[in-house]
């Protein structure tokens, strides 16, 4: 067992962290105030990341990525977690699921995404189908060899900048002993396709400037060439490629918690009340002790999940634990940091209130905490027939 990082890994961490500190932090307040990332800023960030060879570093070298291992990539995500998500979005990490592209889909979607020429977004969730993905209503019917899509998606991150969307749609229903079960197919949908509209969604308390979009399909006609993976094979591609995205949420949470923690530590060491530093009060210092303990625990849990993936070991439960624990940890750390700052913690002079707001969504997206607990407990009980 070996807990240290290699020299390369240390350099990856240092480089990404300095990038975030120097290229992202200075623009955070502006994005927070305006709720927008100016187009030129996003493009400039993207170009810098391309020049640094970090763009699409989660993709294999054969397709132009950097071929990072799960562990290396998790370290990248962890450091990016420090910065505003609206801005780090341009530190492009396209969806791995694009590796399922075949034939000329590679030239049309996969390779341009890896080169940073096209940005993607992924759409599963619908107003009436969240945790219960299979309950989706958005459906595709056959018509003269093509598909006609009708329905809506919501909460679609990155919709603002996406040139194309990976959309999961119901393409039929099987009757099973447990009742009807939808068949799902993944489609590649270009922005601007007739019958398809992407519009700005709700105003969210978390991650201002990182907008969520609503997608509307009205008799949208798509040829077979737009099917990603197999027809009715949507769950197969989902399971093969989206399995690991929960780790990125865990890694984000650890990075963000470390940035937040530094504010708590320094404020506790400097702020004086009753004639002494508040760190001298055990009520404060023990909170600091608990926070760092939880952050380290979440960090190791997350990195070990990534390591398991690299080793080809089963990791479903471990990744669920990492996502669950790291996001709940982030909620506690941001809340405690705010408490340590007293009233000032609520004011936007400090980024604490933003960390606190941002943290809230982490326990919801990519599978809520309850769904992670469901995955963990099913993994334990299924073999016992319970």
């Amino acid at each position, binding site marked *: 067992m070996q807990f240290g990082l290699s*020299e390369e890994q240390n350099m990856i961490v240092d*480089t990404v962290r300095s990038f975030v500190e120097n290229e992202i932090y200075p623009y955070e307040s502006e994005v927070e105030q305006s709720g927008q990332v100016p187009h030129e800023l996003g493009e400039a960030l993207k170009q810098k990341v391309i020049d640094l060879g*970090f763009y699409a570093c989660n993709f294999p070298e054969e397709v132009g990525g*950097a071929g990072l291992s799960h562990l290396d990539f998790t370290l990248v995500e962890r450091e990016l977690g420090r910065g505003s998500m609206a801005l780090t979005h341009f530190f492009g990490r396209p969806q791995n699921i694009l590796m399922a592209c075949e034939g000329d889909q590679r030239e049309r979607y996969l390779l341009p995404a890896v080169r940073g020429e096209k940005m993607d977004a992924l759409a599963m969730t619908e107003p009436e189908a969240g945790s219960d993905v299979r309950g989706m209503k958005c459906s595709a019917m056959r018509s003269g060899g093509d598909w006609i899509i009708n329905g809506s998606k919501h909460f679609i991150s990155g919709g603002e900048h996406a040139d194309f969307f990976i959309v999961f749609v119901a393409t039929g229903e099987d009757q099973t002993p447990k009742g009807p079960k939808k068949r799902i197919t993944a489609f590649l949908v270009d922005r601007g396709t007739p019958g398809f509209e992407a519009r700005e969604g709700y105003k969210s308390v978390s991650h201002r400037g990182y907008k969520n979009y609503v997608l509307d399909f009205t008799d949208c006609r798509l040829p077979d060439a737009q099917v990603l993976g197999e027809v009715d094979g949507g769950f197969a591609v989902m399971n093969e490629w989206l399995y690991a995205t929960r780790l990125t949420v865990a890694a984000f949470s650890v990075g963000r918690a470390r940035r937040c923690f530094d504010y708590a530590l320094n404020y506790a060491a400097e702020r004086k009340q009753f004639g002494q530093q508040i760190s001298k009060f055990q009520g404060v210092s023990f909170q600091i002790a608990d926070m760092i303990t939880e952050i380290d625990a979440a960090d190791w849990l997350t990195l070990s999940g990534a390591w398991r993936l690299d080793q080809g070991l089963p990791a479903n439960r471990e990744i669920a634990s990492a996502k669950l624990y790291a996001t709940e940890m982030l909620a506690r750390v941001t809340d405690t940091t705010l408490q340590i700052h007293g009233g000032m913690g609520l004011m936007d002079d400090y980024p604490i209130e933003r960390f606190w707001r941002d943290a809230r969504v982490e326990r919801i997206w990519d599978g809520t905490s309850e769904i992670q607990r469901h995955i963990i407990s099913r993994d334990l009980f299924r073999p016992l027939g319970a």
Partner: protein
Amino acid sequence: MKVIVPVKRVIDYNVKVRVKADGSGVDLANVKMSMNPFDEIAVEQAIRLKEAGKADEVIAVSVGVKQAQETLRTALAMGADRAILVIASDDVHTDIEPLTVAKILKGIIDEEQPGLVLCGKQAIDNDMNATGQMLSALMGWSQATFASELDIDGDSATVTREVDGGLQTIKVNMPTVVTVDLRLNEPRYASLPNIMKAKKKPLDEKTAADYGVDASPRLEIVNTVEPAARAAGIKVGSVDELIEKLKEAGAV
């Protein structure tokens, strides 16, 4: 032309330094260490010279503890071609003195025959600002310190220096030792492909003894103290009051 860039492993500039309880120095246990920022500027300049076709090879050198290998890897990841690590101590708290470093660098220069040595103007840990100057004296080479611009043209270099009164431009003969200031350039980030390549670049490991240099310290640190905390200021109601207060304080 070969360029040698000495790089020092120092406490990271973002770290809040803490004085050791016995006053013997700064606590370096479990503290993030990085390349001295001025040396990063020197590495950047050397790489730019190579990119401009004015240098053929960039050699990064570090004198210190074994862990300085990480600092050299960073230089390699930025774009240096190879590295030499000279182990001169096995205790991270031992600072290798400028004269020792200069003597070891002389040994390396005698072997490598570079046309230029680019140093940081000083290390941010002890702020000595001496190694480059001592090296130039030991070599009998010209020197140009505090460079904010550097232009190499054949046998000479034109260097703009940041001096107290403003900017001074001098011309020095090559080979030369140049120490670089903050405004010379903005160092690049290590790119991911270069990070991955760094491991494969040669890194030679030597000791101070290989160059016949005794690295044991000649200076003794008597005491290290934190800078005094800044006293709180006062608010004045008018310019007259300000002048009065300044007079009282003996400031005008």
